[in-house]
């Protein structure tokens, strides 16, 4: 009696997981399906399943100058803003957790408030300010703007990581005669390394996926980022859905690889951010 009941239970458990799997993966399948169709077969063949495996769209994508330029722009922006954000966040989080000084808690609060303030509130003055300092339509300008949310994000996450490591080690090293800086580099940095990987992944994807600032601040095709270019593709007359999905697939690939290669760090980062913060 109990075993049959268990069997049913196990059956429904895996059935639910299977349905969940389809729900999760279907959009990815649809992206690939459309990306492998030629423009003419998009409308003529109402099929759910077969893929044409027509590589035309991928060829068009990697030969499209707009796409390649924006890919290059995105890579430059993401790497520079991530590296700067990691450095500044590391310094700030270290300062806010390990060192004691007047006004520390207030500064910490300001950074968390900045972390919680979304781009939707700030994008208008940001565009005006970037224009006023003559950095509209430059990669530099967008890097600076991205730091405004990447640094608070990184600091917020790293504060959590710093709180979860044994600070006594740093104190012990200092008693043994190490300077603050030596203790930071030799003792704390190795301990915080997983946190830096998490922050690296999350800030990089944050910059990579950003749409609103990029849309408002960089309108010149030469400095557009990937999301803006792909969206811009949809506005053309002939609605090149297949090409758009091929570009999307190419754009999604590096980020998905990054996430799954660093899955452990991503999950740890999210947890640290929302629980230990």
């Amino acid at each position, binding site marked *: 009696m109990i075993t049959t009941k268990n069997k049913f239970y196990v059956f429904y458990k895996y059935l639910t*997981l299977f349905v*969940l799997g389809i729900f*999760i993966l*279907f*959009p*990815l399948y*649809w*992206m690939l399906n*459309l990306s492998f169709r030629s423009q003419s077969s998009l409308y003529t063949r*109402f*099929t759910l399943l077969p893929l044409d495996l027509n590589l035309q769209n991928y060829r068009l994508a990697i030969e499209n100058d707009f796409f390649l330029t924006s890919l290059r722009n995105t890579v430059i922006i993401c790497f520079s803003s991530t590296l700067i954000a990691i*450095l*500044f966040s590391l310094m*700030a989080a270290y*300062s806010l957790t390990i060192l*004691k*000084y*007047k006004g*520390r808690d207030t*500064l910490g609060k300001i950074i*968390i*408030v900045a972390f*919680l*303030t*979304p781009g939707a*509130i*700030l*994008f*208008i*003055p940001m565009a005006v*300010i970037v224009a006023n300092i003559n950095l509209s339509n430059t990669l530099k300008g967008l890097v*600076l703007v991205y*730091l*405004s949310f990447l*640094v*608070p994000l990184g600091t917020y996450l790293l504060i959590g990581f710093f709180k979860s490591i044994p600070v006594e080690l740093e104190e012990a090293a200092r008693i043994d005669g190490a300077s*603050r800086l030596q203790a930071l580099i030799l003792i704390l940095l190795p301990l915080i390394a997983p946190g830096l990987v998490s922050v690296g992944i999350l800030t990089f*994807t944050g910059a*990579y996926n950003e*749409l*609103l600032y990029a849309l408002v601040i960089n309108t010149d095709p030469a400095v557009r980022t990937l999301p803006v270019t*792909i*969206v811009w593709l*949809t506005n053309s007359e002939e609605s090149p859905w297949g090409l758009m*999905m091929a570009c999307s697939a190419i*754009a*999604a690939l590096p*980020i*998905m690889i990054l*996430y*799954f290669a660093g*899955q452990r760090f*991503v*999950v740890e980062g*999210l*947890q640290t951010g*929302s*629980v*230990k*913060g």
Partner: protein
Amino acid sequence: MSKSEKVLKRQNNKIFGLLKPDSLFGYFMILPALVVLSFFFAYPLIYEIYISFTDKTLSNDGDFIGFKNYIRLLDNPEFVTAIFNSAVYVSFVQIGKFTLGLGIAILLNQKLRARGLWRGLVLVPYAIPGFVAFLIWRLIYHTEVGALNVFLQKIGLIDAPISFLGERDWAMASVIFSTIWRGFPFWAIMFLAALQAVPKELYEAAAVDGANAWHRFRNISLPGIRPVILIVFMLSTISTINSFEAIWLQTAGGPSDATVILPIFAYRSLTSFNIGEASAAALSLVPISIVFSVLILRKLRKD
């Protein structure tokens, strides 16, 4: 030591008491972050508040006009619609993410083969860039190339394709559904981690006492994950209220203004080059952000 030297020493102590080596180093280390935030957070915010009281346009710096922009906003039926839509959108999205996230977390917390693999699967919608995800959903809902219409027609449920993003009756529900798809993994992963942190002995003890599954969930799991539920809810709500791209990439606020939420409204105002009014619209998101920020700060301090 002369009197003046003593005074000098006391003054030095005062200054160096504030600027102990630790303090100096502390300020030095946080300085880069503060410089960034001064120029690209505090300054824009203050500047935006100032612009919102002027009739600034793209070409004209504008004059001070008091609360006129705000009054005009309240008289604007589209703004009122945007507030209403935001409330509907956020409520349903958050209910959906919570239900799905909790259900999946409980499922993944069972005895499972290859749990790591399933957890990885759940992460997929979160790992895919948002702009890609919403463009795909736009093409799933599409009347001509959309999978949903193909499927519904194939199984004979509908005769003619439905414009899921183009009809007033469907658009909001459609964007809510796709936003849930993109957003539930964060909740599921957080809830799962919290569930796994609940001590197993509690469940064993409850089982010995004869508590059934519901009682175990109600009295052990739920209290165990309550703090995580709260913080995830607050973080996710802030980002959902401001989810510009989800709407922009699928409907751009349409049909007419059926899916206009506040960030979309602000963006539309900006593209009409009335910067003063657009600023006032964007700032209308501030009160709710403040409420959630205060709640989160209080929560973090307690921990």
